[in-house]
């Protein structure tokens, strides 16, 4: 095994291309699926990350998105439903030198794997999580998911679903995630930038990607992804910038008490000083949480971009530190001495 001690450090490697990250397996998602774009952007950005191909490990659970590792010419593990975070945690803890990625979906991460998801977030291993949110179960053919809007009519809910959906960004923030972002399958450049930022972040990086399932939930996010409506229904988060959106950048978001509100920037009254200025590096999660709740309020644009990015110690790093401390204090473990520890007696 290679003798490196910290998280993947960019080193000079031979130039890789998208092709190097493409496996020989036929991609078997439905034609038109949003997953294709996410795969393509990932394969495009990976060569720019500066680490050898063999150090990438893609780990997935079950669902359409979880077929992803088969199409990546890296190390990969297609595991079981909802459990990818646990297997990824084992991979990363055992070998912190690897660049570990979890590929998951809304059902996989938030239903069957909900428990592992929140605990992965709070432990802060240096793992990147890409959650393909299409608000539907695709592989099992069209049941509502934990992110489906209430009232959704599906095969399993002919009269409409009666569950309240999860807000994945709020959930990740509440669980203590140190990097939380949202991107869009239909915005390749933004998606690449966010994936790159997630990689650069040391700690668990969570990226929710609005992804279109053109078979079972077609157009679920078109309001936010299509040219005609995108500008008026999304606000792109930029660190240090006021929250401004709209086709002509003519609207902003300000806080009225605890409520984010849309204000017009053209009628002269509010100026950009009154608007919320985004601070993705704020240690306090409150602002990021406010922003995450905007998707719950009709009429407010959906924030896209990095909600939060703060540096906290990583689980695997603290594990290594404890091992080093123990070795300093007690010396490198000696098996013979360990077996003979405590009260012993000799029979001649």
């Amino acid at each position: 095994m290679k003798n490196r001690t910290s998280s993947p450090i960019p080193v000079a490697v031979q130039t890789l291309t998208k092709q190097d990250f493409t496996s020989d397996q036929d991609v078997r998602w439905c034609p038109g699926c949003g997953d294709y774009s996410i795969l393509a952007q990932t394969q495009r950005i990976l060569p720019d990350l500066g680490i050898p191909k063999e150090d990438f490990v893609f780990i997935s659970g079950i669902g359409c998105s979880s077929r992803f590792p088969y199409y990546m010419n890296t190390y990969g593990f297609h595991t079981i439903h909802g459990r990818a975070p646990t297997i990824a945690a084992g991979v990363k803890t055992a070998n912190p030198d690897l660049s570990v990625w979890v590929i998951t979906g809304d059902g996989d991460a938030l239903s069957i794997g909900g428990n592992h998801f929140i605990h992965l977030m709070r432990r802060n291993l240096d793992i990147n999580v890409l959650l393909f949110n299409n608000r539907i179960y695709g592989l099992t053919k069209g049941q509502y998911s934990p992110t489906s809007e209430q009232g959704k009519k599906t095969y399993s809910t002919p009269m409409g679903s009666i569950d309240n959906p999860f807000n994945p960004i709020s959930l990740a923030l509440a669980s203590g995630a140190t990097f939380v972002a949202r991107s869009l399958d239909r915005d390749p450049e933004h998606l690449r930038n966010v994936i790159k930022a997630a990689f650069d972040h040391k700690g668990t990086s969570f990226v929710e990607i609005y992804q279109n399932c053109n078979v079972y939930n077609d157009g679920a996010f078109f309001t936010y992804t299509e040219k005609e409506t995108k500008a008026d229904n999304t606000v792109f988060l930029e660190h240090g910038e006021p929250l401004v959106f709209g086709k002509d950048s003519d609207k902003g978001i300000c806080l009225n008490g605890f409520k984010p509100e849309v204000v017009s920037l053209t009628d002269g009254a509010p100026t950009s000083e009154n608007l919320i200025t985004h601070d993705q590096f704020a240690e306090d999660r409150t602002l990021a949480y406010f922003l995450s709740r905007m998707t719950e309020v009709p009429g407010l644009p959906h924030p896209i971009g990095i909600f939060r990015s703060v540096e906290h110690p990583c689980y695997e790093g603290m594990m290594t530190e404890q091992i080093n401390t123990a070795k300093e204090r007690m010396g490198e473990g000696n098996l013979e001495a360990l077996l003979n520890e405590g009260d012993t007696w000799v029979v001649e």
Partner: protein
Amino acid sequence: MKKKKQSIEEATILFASDSGGGAQSIGTQMTEASAIAGNDVATLPDYPAEIRAPAGSLAGISGFQLRFSSLTIHTPGDLCDVLVAMNPAALKVNIDKLKPNGILIVDIDNFARRNLRLAGYSSNPLEDGSLTQFQVFPIELTRLTREALKDTNLTQREVDRCKNFYALGMVCWMYNRPMDYAFQWLEEKFATKPQYIEANTLALKAGNIYCEVTEQFATSYEIKPAKFAPGTYRNIEGNMATALGLVAASQKSGLQLVYGSYPITPASTILHELARYRNFGVKTMQMEDEIAAVGVAIGAAFSGALGATGSSGPGIALKAEAINLAMIAELPMVVCNIQRAGPSTGMPTKTEQADLLQMFYGRNGESPLPVIAASRPSDCFETVYEACRIAIKYMTPVIFMSDLYIAFGAEPWLIPKVSDLPAIDVHFPTDTNGFEPYLRDEATLARPWALPGTPGLEHRIGGLEKEDVSGNVSYDPDNHEQMVHLRAEKVARIVDDMPPTEIFGESGAELLVLSWGGSYGAVRTAVEHKQAEGESVAHVHLRYLNPLPKDLGDIMKGFKRVLIPELNLGQLRLLIRAEYLIDAVGLNKIQGQPFHVFEIESKIDELLRGAA
């Protein structure tokens, strides 16, 4: 007065108190003192799941049974020579375990009406003549302890908590045990609370002096050291031995140990133990649930570590899907099942052997896994080490089975030399030439353990059926059948890697007693007794359950009858009958308690009489 000292072969003592009343603690002290004095020892702690059940209630009684002997012993004894009962409930729960004419020591200060009522006594057993068959020693334990500690600054409550050490002092006198070990233990245990060291030391000495000076105790007993094979020994509990075995396998293989676990009785102490070994590079991960605990072990194995997880039946049930993933992914991993009484939550602090079929068959699809089981506390070391060796050599998860009885029981352990432990060879391929993730070793059928981080060996594994050799996803009907056979064949081939089965006794005798797991001790003792009586009976104890040893069929056919005692309704018997078409007879007990030797003896008698 002149005191008599009598030499005896062995003794069994049962300490019983409210849980939290110190029975476990003084039992452990007496065990260590006896082991260091050179006796063979065996213990049976028996306590409720509740941490502190209401004081004086029957449900809250905690017991610690200890047997020490000048001979080699395999069990903590069926019945006791001495019962120390700290209150009426402790007496009521345990009096059936005291031999006729046995010594009964009770704290008479605790036999007030309220305590008698709590224990369900309508009259005081110390006065109503119901205990005439025993030698009763009513001692004012509470008053005497308070008297001995009157000059300390402790509260009455704190003083009363030293009663157990007063009782220990008495028992040390009765069996001529030096108290040095207990003194030393108190120094360590209460290093930051010196007032407790002083108080318990005073209580210990006072109890000892009490026996020396009062006329009540006329005789003390001496038990000569047992004959042991030469070597260095320590006293060890099963779970401790399991933890050490995992560390030893990690050290000998050069692989870091990653142990994922979720707290559960009776497996938690393995996690506690391993968590102390960070200086061995051991990475313990207490996870959010049982599934995550096995998940990290699988991930660690994929990364090239020795992955292990430990739990008990209910937790193993939750892990089943993930264990199956490791099976089809053909990753090495050790799964420790420290069995307890089921089904469901069952009786968490009681023992049982009823998870065998769960380990064989508790996964979907054809999912063959090696299963091996420890027989005694000290055997956990070697058995879990062997589990690691098989896992790595054959690239498969291995089930290691123990049970509460041996996990918490203790006995002397002949400490092995590290150089004598079997080698565990590890090979991580680096050659890209002709690499295929499912290209198997011709002899073992193991696939290569190619680690992430190795240039040129990038590959994908997963739970979908694999194409032979390439490991690509495959739905091909013939390939599926072939892979199912290959995985079964891989496990079956482990028989060639197992030592010949030992027969204790003569081959071709009337009766073979076949056992597995923690019932070893009771069965071996019963067979020893019956052989000494001249009966035609032999014993085979199985460590390897899947696959079963290749000589087992022939061995069994050499006997007229086969008896399989198990703490379940006949799970090994089902497997043996199915595999060999042998009409084995069962002795099945399912009470949360280990076998008594006499239970096995009477079954042997019954079968031998039937056969005659």
